[in-house]
């Protein structure tokens, strides 16, 4: 292989790119990185939701495990969804793209129907059927990723032209984005916008067009959220609170300040799992949008870096899929999911560590949340299915035998040695 061709070998294009990765750079690396990082984040999220919610749950007169069990239910709900998603072939996703878009638009429209609309924390992006509540924008993200992959991937070689890049992807994505914006949920809208932008970008749409679209979208967002009468003051305060001197310790910058307190109290090694002080009702949304601060407090810099690194691993793995998978649909969809999941993680972490103004988005897979968790798991399951169809991956995975046999083999060998 490339190694034998001399000192210039690493620069060649032969299969041996990144020889320093050795056997880690295999056809199943993406698959295992995705499965590993998702699994770890999921389990870690459960642990942190339990740790950060017990106090609040008890204070609310509930079982200390109430929030944890809710989260557990959603994980149990999401796991089969994720499993199925990992096994679905690419063509099924493509086939589901257009119906999915209609469903997503319909669900998102329900947020404007008073009979179904719910409002949580000033955002109206929720709908409810009886006791079941969900955020349609979460479904929208997944659907958009698939749909954009389908329409952009199909026209891949035509995307150099503005017209082909524009239709039908821009109106479709724009419609959903506007519907989400209508819910006045800035965080979700930003994530959806990042997802759309990522899809267009990786699909290869003309950079000029993206600049124009991005600029106009940013203008709309600025107009809607910074200067609209109803929310203007609130958001401007939040932004000035993030970058200026904190003037209203009990109000605008309270949450951000207590997030900082949590991180600072944690220090290098943390105060220990379960020993957070900020979770004693000081930090609002401790088990949700600000769970990263609790991680930082209980597990210290090592905890925060570990979570950050797990998202980096997710990003790297998805980047690998984009790079290695031959199907343009897969490339675009994976890039969209990557922009969504990693972008949302960055947004969340950036808010908690005080780099960004307070924008309420949950930390994917870790924060407590129902529909968001399930759709994120479904999206990652889908990317895992892509990773399974990377060149060579299918054969490598097929060759390794069943999970049961592998597990028993370890046990059997252990006994044999004794």
């Amino acid at each position, binding site marked *: 292989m490339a190694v034998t061709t001399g000192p210039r070998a*690493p620069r*060649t*294009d032969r*299969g041996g*790119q*990144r020889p320093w990765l050795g056997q880690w750079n295999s056809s199943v690396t993406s698959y295992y990185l995705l499965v590993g990082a998702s699994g770890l984040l999921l389990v870690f999220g459960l642990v942190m939701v339990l740790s950060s919610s017990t106090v609040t749950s008890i*204070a*609310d*007169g*509930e079982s200390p495990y109430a929030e944890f069990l809710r989260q557990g239910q959603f994980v149990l709900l999401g796991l089969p969804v994720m499993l199925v998603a990992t096994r679905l072939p*690419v063509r099924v996703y493509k086939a589901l793209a257009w119906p999915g878009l209609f469903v997503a638009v319909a669900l998102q429209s329900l947020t404007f129907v008073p009979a179904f609309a719910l409002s949580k924390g000033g955002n109206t992006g929720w709908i409810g059927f009886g006791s079941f509540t969900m955020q349609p924008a979460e479904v929208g993200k997944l659907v958009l990723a698939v749909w954009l992959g389908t329409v952009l991937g*199909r026209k*891949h*070689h035509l*995307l*150099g*032209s503005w017209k082909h*890049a524009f239709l039908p992807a821009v109106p479709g994505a724009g419609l959903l984005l506007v519907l989400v914006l209508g819910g006045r949920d800035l965080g979700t809208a930003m994530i959806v916008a990042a997802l759309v932008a990522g899809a267009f970008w*990786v*699909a*290869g*749409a*003309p*950079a000029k067009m993206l600049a124009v679209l991005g600029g106009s979208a940013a203008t709309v967002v600025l107009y809607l959220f910074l200067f609209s009468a109803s929310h203007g003051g609130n958001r401007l305060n939040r932004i000035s609170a993030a970058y200026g001197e904190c003037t209203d310790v009990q109000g605008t910058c309270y949450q951000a300040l*207590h997030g900082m*307190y949590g*991180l*600072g*109290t*944690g*220090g*290098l090694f943390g105060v220990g799992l379960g*020993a957070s*002080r*900020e979770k*004693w*009702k*000081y930090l609002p949304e401790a088990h949700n949008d600000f769970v990263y601060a609790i991680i*930082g407090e209980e597990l210290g*810099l090592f905890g925060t870096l570990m979570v*950050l690194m797990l998202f980096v691993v997710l*990003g*790297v793995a998805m*980047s690998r899929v*984009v*790079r*290695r*998978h*031959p*199907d*343009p649909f897969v490339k675009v969809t994976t*890039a969209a999911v*990557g922009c969504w999941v990693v972008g949302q993680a*960055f947004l969340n972490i*950036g808010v908690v*560590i*005080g*780099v960004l103004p307070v924008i309420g988005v949950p930390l994917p897979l870790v924060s407590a949340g129902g529909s968001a968790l399930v759709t994120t798991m479904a999206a990652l399951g889908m990317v895992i299915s892509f990773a399974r169809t990377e*060149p*060579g991956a299918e054969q490598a995975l097929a060759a390794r035998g069943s999970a049961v046999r592998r597990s028993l083999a370890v046990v059997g060998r252990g006994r044999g040695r004794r």
Partner: protein
Amino acid sequence: MSKAAGRSATVDGASRKTASRAGSGRAGSGRAGSGKAASRRTASPKVASRRKASGTGGSRTSAVRQAVSRSGGIGGGVVRRRQGPPQPPGPPASPERRQRWLLVIATLVVVVFVARLVQVQVFEGPALAATALENRMATVVVPAHRGQITDRDGVVLATSVDRYTVAADQQAIQTFRGGSRVDAEGEPVEDGALGVAQLLAPILGTTKAELAAQLNGDRRYVVLARNVEPETQRKIRELRLQAYVPMELTSKRTYPSGTVAGPLVGFVDADQVGQGGIERAYDDVLAGKAGVDRYERSRDGVRIPGGAEDSTPAQPGGDVVLTIDHDIQWKAEDSIDEAVARTGASYGIVVVEDLRTGELMAIADSGDVDPNDRTSANVAKGSRAVQDTFEPGSTGKVITMAAALETGAWQPDSQFTVPDRFTTPNGQTFRDSHDHPVQQLTLAGILAHSSNSGTVQVAEKIPPQVQYDYLKKFGLGESTGLDLPGESRGTVHPVDRWDARTRYAVTFGQALTVNAMQATSVFSTIGNGGVRLQPTLLKGTRTADGELEPVERPEGTRVVSEETAASLLHMMEEVTSEEGTAVGAQVPGYRVAGKTGTAQIFEGGGVTYMASFIGVAPADDPRFTVSVFLKSPKTSIFGGVVAAPVFRDVMGFALQKEGVPPSSPAGEPLPLEW
């Protein structure tokens, strides 16, 4: 195209090399075609120079490849042009390369985040942690438990119990959410003030509507109930409303014995500081030292388990053990109340002293004063035994007799001719309380009959300075040493201010004032063989660990000799004899020595009387002094009539309670006449 590429990948997908080549081939073709966007972005001067250097491949392709190959390279060295039909506006940019841009952005973000995390958690961490901790620390003053006041046997006269002040934080209550909670009747709990009221009203014994009205508003602290008992507090605590309904530990002083020793024990103010009686006199012993509890608490006021703590525990106050005997005190109060009712007196005082030790067994005031009942100001008046002063009257003759005997001027059987009116050499005329023919009385007879004109004759042989010295030696005009608040020590004018009449008047207890305690002490001194002991109310203090520290008492001072004391006692026994003025003071089975008194009190332009009897028993081996004072009795002004029966009751009770053996039969009575 995408389908073709995908298929080719799966067909020869077994080999990674092939796959990457296929991908890169497509990418390469795109770039080779012309790829405006890509070339514009990458055609920097640096790249251009490299382009010259590298001879292989399409110039643009190689430049791009080199530009990106440092971060891993796309691969595709062999440029294939089998696909990628030329598009008029130009083919799209390569997804791989575009993805790389995203990776670069993500890398930058991660670098910024890691730097920021290190900054916040490592460099700024300690300062943030300290600020956060300081904000979490709560400082609560822990009230110290006030010591008890008990009688000599441990009967509790005053004690403190835990109580709670229940308040409301109206601002917090606005944010109260009932959630899934239900009230005692299973009804779902509402939000806000109504919800809190719904939970709290049944426990506080009010109605939901009434309580909700109190909970509505913007104030951070509104007291809902004071002196809430711990049982109720526990019920409220179980509601877990601490963020909305804060509760503070307070203390409530209670007096389990009620009216018994009420004015003596005194009272405390709202801050638990002693303001009267023993509570004030021994406040330094009783009051503990409040502690400070500093702990980490949650935003809604719960102590965080395992949190930082820095507490100084409260030091409970010590107990005060009085010399008072609860039962004797009760008996004294009961008797004096009865006497006041019977005689129509305005008030009465009884003092019982163990004359061997100076310990006061009872200080009783008439009238029910219950320190628990703070609706009236009665308890604030304190004990009259040390506050009210009056002329001692005939009981003051005892001091004159003591001086006469001690100086050897007279003997008990010295003979006097006593008319009912007597004019002294300096022209002052004194008369007895009632007219009588001239009597031939001994010294004992003068005392027994309480003759003023006789006493004046006795005083002829006692110089004024000597008289004054004895007054002072018996403790008149001096502090009693009880330390009770509001004590008035009475007035004994110095000799140089005595006029012609005062010089004689003081000999039978006029022209000077004493309080009941001082008058009692004179008799105790005689009963104690002439040694005066400072009267005391304090047996000792009991520290928090339960040990009794006896109080140090000053040595007694000898006032008169034992012989004089014995003679005087013998003379005073005749007062209670059939011929004396206080037959009613006799206690069956015991010999009693005492003296009646009737002193004039000038007040409000008129004259009224203080009728008294002070005595010791058993006369053969004195144990107790009991003094009884009645002010303005209506039935009779004579102490032998109105006060002596109270003496009999109280002394009899005290002697029996303490198990004092009955007296031996009286000896030869002293001759009263000659």
